[in-house]
């Protein structure tokens, strides 16, 4: 009797499991791109490739290395995610000033047709603007009029491994190619004049937990790109590819491998799932031919029990030989990180004064709330100052730049005390800052919202989340989170002025030679600030949450300011307010009439 019942139950369980497996629906078309109601109308799915009717952008020749190096001085262009190789995001456009900025008006606008954050930094070259959307659509539009010239929608996989929204931060341009990295870990090059695919390389299996969200960096016909995936324990990598063929030239591990003495900075086998992802665009110093790249937090984020040690090279800046990917030096900002303080916020290659001497520096407003100054020729630590208003995970840094951690800030099983800054930062690698060389000021959009950290169990299996814990946004939940644009004096590390917003500021910034900088707010406004004192000069309610990187350029004497609008609702948790504005990307371009 008992045996028969057991046999029946076993067969039921098997049947259940089999039916469970069969219930998976087939892969759908591009996610976030569905047309509500289309199925009922019997419409066919729209085309996903729209090549140019005739070649565009031909007023400019190929974007050679000379163009990429010197071109940022040309106000008609915006060539790099960081504005130039030094990441200044400073346009030479002079015609927008504190006196006339209030006259800015909408010139044109363009939709993305996708949901999730619209975090692109557009590229402008040869009169064409190239911008990417969430879910990897690539649009080429006339930079003056906004008219669509060509378009390509990447067909993505239905089972991608992404932690933090379907973002893409832009293309890189080089030669006659524009290159985009995808959420399913591909690198795709397009002919910039026609929109046709030149090559499409699967960089690494996305099922292992990898995706790529950042704008690549192109130097001397090499394409440099990093990956996201630390939240899946996917081991960090920085790759270099041949611009013409898409073949991989080198790959550098961001986790110290066996054979590297620094592998011992990981207890046991924890290096194998060490994360330390490379998900932000680096910088390039032409003078010393050095590629700089940053790394994110060690995995799992909030549980360090199994990974005793400093966990190199997580939360670091690496100086690499661009030809081989070999490391020249490194500096680690946050050893044995337990707060998800990715070390990959924007690095600025600034020349500045320090102790009476002019030095070649690397400055970074770090996720951990400190503003670092390093000597970029040697990696020597010079100074770290607090740039956020609230910081209590550490009591400062020592003479070598090592944080003096307050142990009461560590995550616990029951939940830690309130810890500042939150895992969002400070600043975050998903948005940009800008630098004004004439004033030696770096403008940083910041989040001021502290958290409590609870530790949990993470099991490493390729492709599943590997967090080790959960932060609770205690400030945001009480409506106490806020944000600023903080102007940091590079010479002293002190904050000169702050513009305040009642919500965290999570969109990028651009500065201009005219003294007016631009950013956007989580609440949905594009704003202009006076670079001298942070005075708000102008605003426009775009409607969608600001998460994009604005740019400025000038064509035929007319200045244009491009600002993406459109957020990701899950980020609402970081602000504590339920965002009423629906998701949906829209690019706004503003201009000024004489």
């Amino acid at each position: 009797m008992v045996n028969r019942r057991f046999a029946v139950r076993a067969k039921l369980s098997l049947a259940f499991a089999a039916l469970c497996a069969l219930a998976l629906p087939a892969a759908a078309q591009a996610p976030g791109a569905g047309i509500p109601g289309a199925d009922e109308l019997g419409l066919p799915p729209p085309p996903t490739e729209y090549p140019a009717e005739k070649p565009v952008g031909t007023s400019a020749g190929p974007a050679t290395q000379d163009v990429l190096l010197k071109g940022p001085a040309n106000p008609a262009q915006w060539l790099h995610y960081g504005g130039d190789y030094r990441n200044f995001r400073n346009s030479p456009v002079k015609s927008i000033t504190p006196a006339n900025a209030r006259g800015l008006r909408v010139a044109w606008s363009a939709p993305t047709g996708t949901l999730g954050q619209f975090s692109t930094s557009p590229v402008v070259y040869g009169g064409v603007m190239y911008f990417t959307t969430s879910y990897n659509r690539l649009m080429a539009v006339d930079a003056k009029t906004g008219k669509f010239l060509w378009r390509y929608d990447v067909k993505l996989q239905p089972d991608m491994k992404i932690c933090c929204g379907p973002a893409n931060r832009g293309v890189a341009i080089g030669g006659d190619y524009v290159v985009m990295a995808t959420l399913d870990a591909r690198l795709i090059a397009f002919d910039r004049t026609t929109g046709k695919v030149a090559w499409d390389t699967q960089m690494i299996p996305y099922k292992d937990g990898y995706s790529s969200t950042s704008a690549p960096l192109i130097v001397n016909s090499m394409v440099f790109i990093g990956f996201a995936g630390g939240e899946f324990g996917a081991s960090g990598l920085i790759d270099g590819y041949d611009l013409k063929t898409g073949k991989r030239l080198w790959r550098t591990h961001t986790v110290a491998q066996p054979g590297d003495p620094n592998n011992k900075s990981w207890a046991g086998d924890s290096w194998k799932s060490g994360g330390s992802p490379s998900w932000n665009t680096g910088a390039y110093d032409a003078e010393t031919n050095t590629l700089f790249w940053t790394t994110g937090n060690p995995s799992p984020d909030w549980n360090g029990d199994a990974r005793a040690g400093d966990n190199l090279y997580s939360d670091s800046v690496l100086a690499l030989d661009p030809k081989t990917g070999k490391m020249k030096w490194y500096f680690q900002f946050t050893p044995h990180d337990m707060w998800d303080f990715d070390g990959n916020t924007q690095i600025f290659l600034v020349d500045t004064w320090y102790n009476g001497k002019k030095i070649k520096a690397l400055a970074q407003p770090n996720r951990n709330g400190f503003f670092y100054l390093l000597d970029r020729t040697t990696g020597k630590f010079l100074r770290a100052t607090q740039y956020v208003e609230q910081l209590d995970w550490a009591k400062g840094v020592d003479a070598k730049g090592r944080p003096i951690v307050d142990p009461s800030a560590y995550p616990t099983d029951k939940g830690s005390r309130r810890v500042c800054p939150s895992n969002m930062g400070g600043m975050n690698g998903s948005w940009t800052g800008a630098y004004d060389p004439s004033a030696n000021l770096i403008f940083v959009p910041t989040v001021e919202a502290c958290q409590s950290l609870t530790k949990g169990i993470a099991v490493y299996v390729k492709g599943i989340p590997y967090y080790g814990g959960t932060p609770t946004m205690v400030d945001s939940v009480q409506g106490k989170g806020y944000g600023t644009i903080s102007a940091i004096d590079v010479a002293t590390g002190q904050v000169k002025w702050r513009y305040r917003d009642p919500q965290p500021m999570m969109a990028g910034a651009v500065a201009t030679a005219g003294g007016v900088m631009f950013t956007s707010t989580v609440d949905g406004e594009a704003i202009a600030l006076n670079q001298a004192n942070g005075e708000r000069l102008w605003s426009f309610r775009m409607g969608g949450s600001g998460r994009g990187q604005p740019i400025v350029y000038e064509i035929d004497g007319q200045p244009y300011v491009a600002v993406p609008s459109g957020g990701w609702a899950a980020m609402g948790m970081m602000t504590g307010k339920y965002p009423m504005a629906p998701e949906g990307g829209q690019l706004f371009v503003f201009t000024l009439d004489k």
Partner: protein
Amino acid sequence: MTAHRSSAAAVIAAAGLLLAAVTAGRANGNEAPATAADPVPALLNSPPDVARGRALFVGTCGAYCHHMTPGPGDAPYLFDCDWLHGGSDAEIFHTISAGVPNTRMVAFGGALPDQDIWRLVAYVRSASTCVK
């Protein structure tokens, strides 16, 4: 012979019921049957199992995905009464196991042992604020 035929008949009858349940479920938009043996009630009476479920939730499901407090996001709040893919223990197990295509919800089946997935279901039940 008689014993075998009755057991075969029982299986066929059970499979038929299962098929009916699935078909009915599919018609309602649900995707998983609800008649297999359910380990959750026993797990709910076992504090170490619920504790492991909680620790797994905190370390694997929380953070950038399911939050511990209500709020906006593509990964829904799991401690209320609303379920997108069915709210029975078996349906929740299925959602965790199979994932949800075209979303950030990955398939944990085969990665986490089934028993750990059941512990997650038990924890979510134990922490639910749904009053029914």
